[in-house]
């Protein structure tokens, strides 16, 4: 039977994918094509082209992009009934470039299978790795994962095999496997897409880990902001249990393993492993000193192995295809692929999976298709969310692997990658991240609680035009203090956005402090809402976007802003590709 694949992950749904899917079903029935076509709701494939719709027959596959509910009838009548594909809606070169440059291992099923149908997962080799693993000795599984060179994808980059070994060797009658699905970094959505698009791959990885360390229970700690992921995970857990891949005596080997889902309640710090454990135990999510590490004393004081979603999703491929295959991908120190969430001012936004060692330039200008607006130039890439840093264009040739990135002062993080252009103010970005970490600091350590607050106060003064030269020294000193004197990863990395922007964009700070200018035209207190006549291209874009009609413009004339009417909403500044409004 031929299939119509419709991407209905959270991002697809935001672009009316559910409506599109329902319309297809309705019209297929109406035109009596339901014997020939089946609508399959797949997870997000990664490229955000509103709704992606694939028509898959035995010998062909055509992809439609930017499909809206009003296009469905045309596709059904012209293509499915008439046999003539709707040319103007077919995916173009960007789509091809975006996918051809990738190496999809973790994402291989995302956007291809119905995540709520275990049969489709099994048909693509699912649970074969678990079958292999249950007949292996614990140490052999651990050795395979170790020699594959898999490192934790949550941000830390700790060798996964070693982590498993510690937990295997720890004494304890009960052990736990915990999946960290508390993807709290703003700007990161890799884990959400995997959970929504291929939940069984995570479950299979966890079961293999359970077999390796000798655990019988698993917990997935998932962000409350991801309701669809929770729903699909629960469905997958139930189905896996019904098929005997979870539960007692799996495949008659005597190995038993079950998984429960715990929903987070909105606290970024719970991504830190000891805080996450406290939260599962029903307490405030406060990190505690390590050692003892969770591998020795974790959930309910039992040995616990915690890995992130993407790490678990890699495991089945390593067991199925072998450590040699996996370690042949990537660089010397960083093996395999990494999924990045490409977002911001880039043309093709979405998820990309590339071998470790790919350069930033390849990602932004290759797969990403370059900047969203050709007139406004690439300025920086933000890696690793609030714990990471902003890297300038001059580092665009750098290879993306754990070691190279750490050397820049940023971190690999979980894989969020926000592309920024000349209309992004780096001081404002630092202020934005500090606002976030001040809000999310748990408050235990004084340097993090008070120091970050003071750094934020100073950044607010700078962006408000009250900056002083001595503020720069203060930010550097306080940043180093907070980094070195905090207990957990949150405090140890929270100053990074401020420190890296100061390191690479010192000139922007200088302009804010000394000249009270914001070169990106972002900081409200430094804006005049005046059109710079020399730069104005007389295009009228600003006038069209103004919601309060405060801009006077006639064809061929320089625009003028009526400050009486202006509400300073900044729509015009954002719309102007020539940066002609200051």
């Amino acid at each position, binding site marked *: 039977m031929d299939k119509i694949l419709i991407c209905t992950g959270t991002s697809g749904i935001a672009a009316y994918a559910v409506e599109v899917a329902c319309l297809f079903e309705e019209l297929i029935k109406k035109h009596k094509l339901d014997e020939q076509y089946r609508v399959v709701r797949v997870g997000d494939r990664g490229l955000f082209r509103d709704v992606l719709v694939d028509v898959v027959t035995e010998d062909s596959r055509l992809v439609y992009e930017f499909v809206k509910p009003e296009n469905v009838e045309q596709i059904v009548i012209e293509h499915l009934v008439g046999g003539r594909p709707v040319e103007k809606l077919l995916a173009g070169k960007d789509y091809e470039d975006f996918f051809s440059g990738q190496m999809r291992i973790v994402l291989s099923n995302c956007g291809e299978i119905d995540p709520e149908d275990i049969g489709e997962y099994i048909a693509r080799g699912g649970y074969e790795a678990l079958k292999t693993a249950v007949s292996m000795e614990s140490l052999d599984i651990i050795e395979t994962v170790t020699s594959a060179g898999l490192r934790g994808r949550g941000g830390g980059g700790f060798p996964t095999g070693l982590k498993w070994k510690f937990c295997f060797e720890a004494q304890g009658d009960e052990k736990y496997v915990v999946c960290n699905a508390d993807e709290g970094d703003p700007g990161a959505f890799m884990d959400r897409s995997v959970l929504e698009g291929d939940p069984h791959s995570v479950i299979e990885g966890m079961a293999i880990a359970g077999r390796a360390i000798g655990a019988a229970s698993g917990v997935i700690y998932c962000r409350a902001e991801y309701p669809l992921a929770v729903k699909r995970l629960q469905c997958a857990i139930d189905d896996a249990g019904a098929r005997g891949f979870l539960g007692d005596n799996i495949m008659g080997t005597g190995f038993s393993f079950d998984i429960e889902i715990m929903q987070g309640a909105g606290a970024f710090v719970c991504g830190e492993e000891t805080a996450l454990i406290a939260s599962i135990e029903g307490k405030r999510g406060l990190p505690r000193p390590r050692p003892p590490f969770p591998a020795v004393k974790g959930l309910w004081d039992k040995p616990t192995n915690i890995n992130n979603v993407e790490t678990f999703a890699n495991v089945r491929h390593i067991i199925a295809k072998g450590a040699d295959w996996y370690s042949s991908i990537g660089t010397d120190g960083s093996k395999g692929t990494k999924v990045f969430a490409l977002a911001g001012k880039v043309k093709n936004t979405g998820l990309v999976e590339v071998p470790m060692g790919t350069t930033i330039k390849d990602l932004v200008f290759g797969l990403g298709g370059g900047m969203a607006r050709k007139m406004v130039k690439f300025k920086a890439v933000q890696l690793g969310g609030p714990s990471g840093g902003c890297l300038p264009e001059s580092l665009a040739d750098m290879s993306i692997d754990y070691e190279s990135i750490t050397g820049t002062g940023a971190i690999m993080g979980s894989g969020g990658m*926000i592309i920024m252009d000349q209309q992004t103010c780096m001081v404002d970005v630092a202020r934005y991240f500090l606002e976030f970490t001040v809000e999310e600091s748990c408050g235990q350590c004084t340097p993090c609680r008070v120091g970050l607050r003071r750094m934020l106060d100073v950044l607010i003064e700078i962006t408000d035009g009250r900056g002083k030269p001595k503020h720069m020294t203060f930010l550097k000193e306080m940043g180093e203090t907070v980094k070195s004197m905090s207990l957990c990863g949150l405090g140890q990395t929270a100053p990074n956005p401020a420190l890296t922007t100061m390191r690479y964009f010192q000139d922007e700070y200088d302009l804010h402090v000394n000249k009270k200018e914001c070169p990106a035209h972002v900081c409200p207190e430094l804006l005049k809402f005046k059109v710079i006549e020399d730069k104005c291209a007389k295009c009228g874009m600003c006038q069209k976007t103004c919601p309060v009609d405060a801009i006077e413009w006639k064809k061929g004339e320089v625009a003028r802003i009526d400050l009486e009417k202006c509400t300073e909403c900044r729509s015009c500044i954002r719309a102007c590709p020539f940066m002609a409004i200051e």
Partner: protein
Amino acid sequence: MPAVNTSEVKKSDIVGMIEHHREKKGVLIPLLQEVQDRYGYVPKEAVEIIAAELDVYPVDIYGILTFYAQFHLKPRGRHIIKVCMGTACYIMGGKEILDHLKGTLGIEIDQTTEDGNFTLEVVSCLGCCGMGPVVMVDEKFYGRCDLQKMDEVLQEYGK
């Protein structure tokens, strides 16, 4: 889902929820989530009943409620507007959207309009970064928002 916001807390309802969780370890967070699903917020009366039934101090429950951003101690509006302030949404104009909503609705973050129709909240990241700026109203996502689109969305919900 739109919040129910009933102020009548029935002891039997709360006890029923507690029974559902009692045998498990680490019950407090899932239990409080269930209470909030039912009432739209966590009422004071519910905290007192839970504290008595589970033999914990109310302060420990408030400790959890105020630690996690997801819990609410006051009734909320019929429609919850969540403006995403994730990095991608922020640099794509999320702040402008938020300012516009504050102005149009006449409320600040975490406040409810006088007619009880809207509560305005911000959220760190909804995970739709490729569709930014993103706004979520109740359970529905709106991607690639601008000020005009926001006005249309508000009208959809009876502004």
